[in-house]
């Protein structure tokens, strides 16, 4: 059962047909539950736009996005936000953290917004795995770019969401930390049956994915079909 299904998604900017920018031009895609999908493409190819659409951060000009059977764009703003809060973990390229909250509060934010209880052992595990134990009371302004990104990843994992959408999550990390983070993500995703959609420039990271989707000028040029799942067991 595909957890993500995109049908003829279009995102155009501008009204004048001559100056319209086509960020996404008729994209269709489906992702299975538990799949790890990497999205690659040149700058401005529309990958970030695609990711934003998947999380319901932005509205499309045309087309539909179904997440776990829910038509995202048919949902009200309120319900969409709640859906995001519970089912999606975001890692952005930059400006991930709420500047007025410290690291711990940032990580716990989606849980607290839902009024839910905190799984302390699990969180401790995640924080330790990302090497953030020393910094949990720091404010984002006191962290390096890489540390901020790790906090964002911790936050994305905190609610054990069904989907993790990451935009260059290892962009600010050195290669060793990148690998560790990737392993952590994969472990978590297996344990909690999570789907990962990750935008990356890094070919070696892309290779570890179940499927690589290439985008060029707002269209998918390869990686449409889900791979036959030859998992290295």
């Amino acid at each position: 059962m595909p957890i993500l299904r995109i049908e003829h998604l279009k995102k155009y900017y501008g009204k004048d047909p001559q100056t319209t920018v086509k960020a996404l031009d008729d994209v269709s895609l489906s992702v299975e539950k538990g799949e790890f999908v990497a999205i690659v493409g040149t700058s401005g190819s529309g990958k970030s736009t695609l990711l934003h659409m998947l999380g319901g951060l932005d509205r499309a000009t045309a087309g539909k996005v179904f997440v776990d059977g829910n038509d995202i764009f048919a949902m009200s703003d309120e319900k969409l936000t709640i859906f995001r809060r519970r089912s999606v973990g975001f890692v952005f390229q930059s400006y991930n953290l709420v500047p007025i909250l410290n690291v711990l509060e940032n990580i716990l934010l989606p849980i607290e917004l839902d009024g839910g209880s905190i799984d302390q052992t699990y969180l401790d595990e995640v924080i330790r795995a990302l090497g953030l134990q020393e910094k949990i009371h720091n404010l984002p302004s006191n962290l390096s770019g890489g540390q901020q990104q790790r906090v964002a990843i911790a936050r994305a994992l905190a609610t054990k969401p069904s989907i993790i959408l990451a935009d260059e999550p290892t962009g600010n990390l050195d290669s060793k930390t990148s690998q560790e983070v990737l392993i952590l993500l994969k472990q978590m995703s297996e344990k909690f049956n999570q789907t990962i959609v990750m935008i990356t420039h890094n070919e070696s990271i892309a290779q570890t994915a179940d499927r690589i989707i290439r985008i060029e000028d707002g269209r998918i040029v390869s990686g449409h079909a889900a791979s036959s799942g030859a998992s290295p067991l």
Partner: protein
Amino acid sequence: MTSRNDVRSSKRGNFIFSAILVLLVSGYAGRVVFLEGKQPALTELTVLFVSCMLILGALWNWMLRRQVTAFMNSVDEMVDRAIHGREKLTHFDETSLSSLEHKLLRYIEINQANEQNLETEKNTIKELISDISHQTKTPLSNILLYSQLLAETPELGGDTRLLLNQIESQSEKLEWLITSLVKLSRLETGMITLQSEVTPVIATITSAVSHIYTRAENKGISVQIACDPLTKARHDHKWTSEALFNLLENAVKYSEAGGSIRIAAGGNEMFTRIDISDTGMGIPGNELEHIFKRFYRGHSAREYEGIGIGLYLTQKIISLQGGFITAASGVGTGTKLSIFLPQI
């Protein structure tokens, strides 16, 4: 414990609040009446006021209770739907019920995924086992073949012949070991499905005996069967025969020449019992509880051949059929193993 305390304290809280309300309302009303003097209009009004307040309070209380009950009912409904995979009760609402439902569904989903993973793994193991057994057959039979061929070579030195014998017997042992292990793994992963029927046990017994007869005769041990042809039990003929064969094998192995083995079968209320008694060396009391364990070899049995999985296998087979096995023995007085199989 805690929930009972909570219930009690909430009941107490309820009572306290109602009491305070009643006291305040009636106190105020009474004081007003007292201050203003006995005027019928005022008294009427006061009485009306007091009763209205009380009724209102009671109504509100009842309404709140109903709300709580309704809420619990929806929680119940929500859990039901989740368990049975029906449509969700709430859809991304900003309510604790919705949050709870999401948590539950997520948990179920993760569990199901894990289950599926396990399933996949099991299947992989199944394939592995079948692959191994397939793969080892050929090399083993080859080894046996070549050793036999070698044995037929004329002018083989005595030492060489001895070595060859060793190779042969070890290979046979190896073959037996692998077969047993494969059987064992099959049993353990539940890949074996036993087909049990209610049939006379005499056939199964004779089948098992037939396999051991030659060896017993060679060793000079007599075998006796005492079984009514009508005695029936629900069992898988093939596998139970194998189980019985294991026991008989042991009996022969651990008995001296001239000993005897007696197999007796009889039906009871619920179970059909098959006893296999021998006159062998017996099992010391302190080891009796361990004999059915995997790879267990008794102290004195060490001198003999064997790996220690025969009894384990037997017990597995019997218990999978819904029966059980017991043992009675004494050192030097022989061993009696009793198998109980369900009758229906």
